């Protein structure tokens, strides 16, 4: 981990559907805005512990922490790769989370 710590959120893939989820206050959420934000190492470790248990319970796979910037309480991933994960293919605005967002819940 870099010396300078950013707030973090926890990202994973839903096991049965494969789509990208974040750990929110009351479970897995599809929208990055609903992610629970860890502001220090202890909070991040707590998120990771929940994710580990959830992976062991076979609800998600491939979880990891992602650095975010927070504005008005809403997290935005800092790295472009993670940004893409919460939008969808940049070449197909009709697909991925961006499409679901314009249609409502999308679940």
């Amino acid at each position: 981990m870099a010396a300078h710590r950013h707030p973090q959120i926890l990202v994973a893939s839903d096991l049965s559907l494969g789509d990208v989820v974040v750990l929110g206050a009351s479970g897995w959420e599809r929208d990055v805005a609903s992610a629970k934000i860890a502001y220090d190492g202890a909070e991040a470790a707590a998120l990771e512990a929940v994710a580990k248990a959830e992976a062991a319970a076979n609800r998600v796979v491939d979880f990891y922490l992602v650095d975010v910037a927070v504005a008005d309480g809403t997290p935005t991933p800092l790295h472009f790769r993670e940004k893409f994960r919460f939008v969808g293919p940049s070449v197909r605005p009709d697909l991925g989370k961006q499409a679901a967002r314009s249609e409502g819940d999308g679940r």
Partner: protein
Amino acid sequence: MTAHDPTLPPRPNAAPIGYAYDEHDRAFVRERVAEFRGQVERRLAGALTEEEFRPFRLMNGLYLQLHAYMLRVAIPYGTLTSRQMRRLAEIADRWDKGYGHFTTRQNLQYNWPKLVDVPDILEALADVDMHAIQTSGNCIRNVTADHFAGVAADEIEDPRATAEFLRQWSSAHAEFSFLPRKFKIAVTGAEHDRAAVKVHDIGLRIVTNDAGEIGYEVIVGGGLGRTPFIGKVLREFLPRADLLAFLEAVLRVYNRFGRRDNKYKARIKILVHETGIDEIRAQVEAEFAAMDRAPFAYDGEEFARVAGFFGTPPYEDLPERSEALEKAKAESAAFAAFAAVNVAPHRQAGYAIVTVSLKPIGGIPGDATSAQMRALADAADTYGFGELRVSHEQNIILPHVKKDDLLALWRDLDAAGLATANAGLVSDIISCPGLDYCALATARSIPIAQAISKRFSDLERQRQIGPLGIKISGCINACGHHHVGAIGILGLEKKGVESYQITLGGDPTLDAAIGELIGPGVSAEEVPDVIENLVELYLAERQEAERFIDTCRRIGHKRFKESARREGEDGSGI
């Protein structure tokens, strides 16, 4: 097998165009589907952990990607029937998002399947003798071949019988199911190489010796990825009778000595490079001499039987020149351009090979909607004995079209948005999915392809520029073959933004060459300008009918490098 539903009587024009599964093959594929269904159920019920499940899903072509799962479907040597193409479209509609992506390995990828649906998808594939077995993992992958197989004017022999032989030998080959790394074999039977045989783990060229016998030149240790290599000749002439035994010997040597300690050094290309081709040859020949060759004894009748599946369709006796075609070209400049660019000579008089470009201007290379897949299947039935091919350039080939029918075909393709006359030109760009889909990517590749395609949208200008292969990968794995692009583009990350390295002078054919870097990485926005500069220099310098790659070779890398250098840059950032 005919191109049509086996429950229906064969149509009079139906040709034998693909290997027919026997009961054995069908039962094997069905068993695998049932087995995977059980594995998915156990995974979802929590009886299998992800670590336990991952190898099972990969054995069935299922990856986890950036936004979703991805399923890779095998299309052996790129040959498929209209019925199979229609099934691919149905699957796209029912279980995916209405499209599929044709890849540089002649396969098809679905980008959005749900894990829970994959067993049903595999079942639907099995109905038409298709599967996703060995499209992932450290095994012998889908064998690829010249997409003009069986019809090319420059062909010595149809490579598909050989490829099918290899498919049968390598499928579920117990000893080679856990190789040090994946293993890719390509076969060509023509004078010109359209299968990129020199950049495969094994490339086979069908050749004739002085006695007029048909055999193989065996090339080994080519490959792209992190460390690109051009393959080296292992045997100049391998008699057909020795084919399977000899490849068995090569794979045994690789399986024994391949670098299992380091995944980045595990491909056979590294073994060949580190050990030296002469030593590898000695080891292979020693293994070949010592092994029990009886299980691989050549059965000429069996080869003939397999070759029979790729028989000649019931062509009509036609004159070489089609008056209808000449008239149509005279009347429509757009059609004439299509005929000049996307139509290739056929070995049968009066017929032509048509390349259907999956690269519309500004489109996503290799993507086809389900409606387009159906239009292609219809076109194959109407004009081409129900047969289609996927090319490693991510296009679709209709291999037997009567010249008299070209105008009608072009109109049908045009109605489906499939008539872009750019085969082999600057907008016929190979691109991997990159960071729009791929979990390994370091940058996007598709938007770069789109931007270049739009910059050169004028097809007339593209024709003036002539053949030029641009190939783009979104990371060093080189799925988009950027190393062998006349212009190659590699997407990387530099200081938190996407950055693109440009290489020049790559060539996938028998004159194979790895492109050389021309300067520091550039931003996404700058890529089209850099390409434009390279093309402008070429146009200014070319002599007579020189292709881009010829001019590159003649005037040298340095001149191009200078043209790409922008104000204030010294190249120190490379």
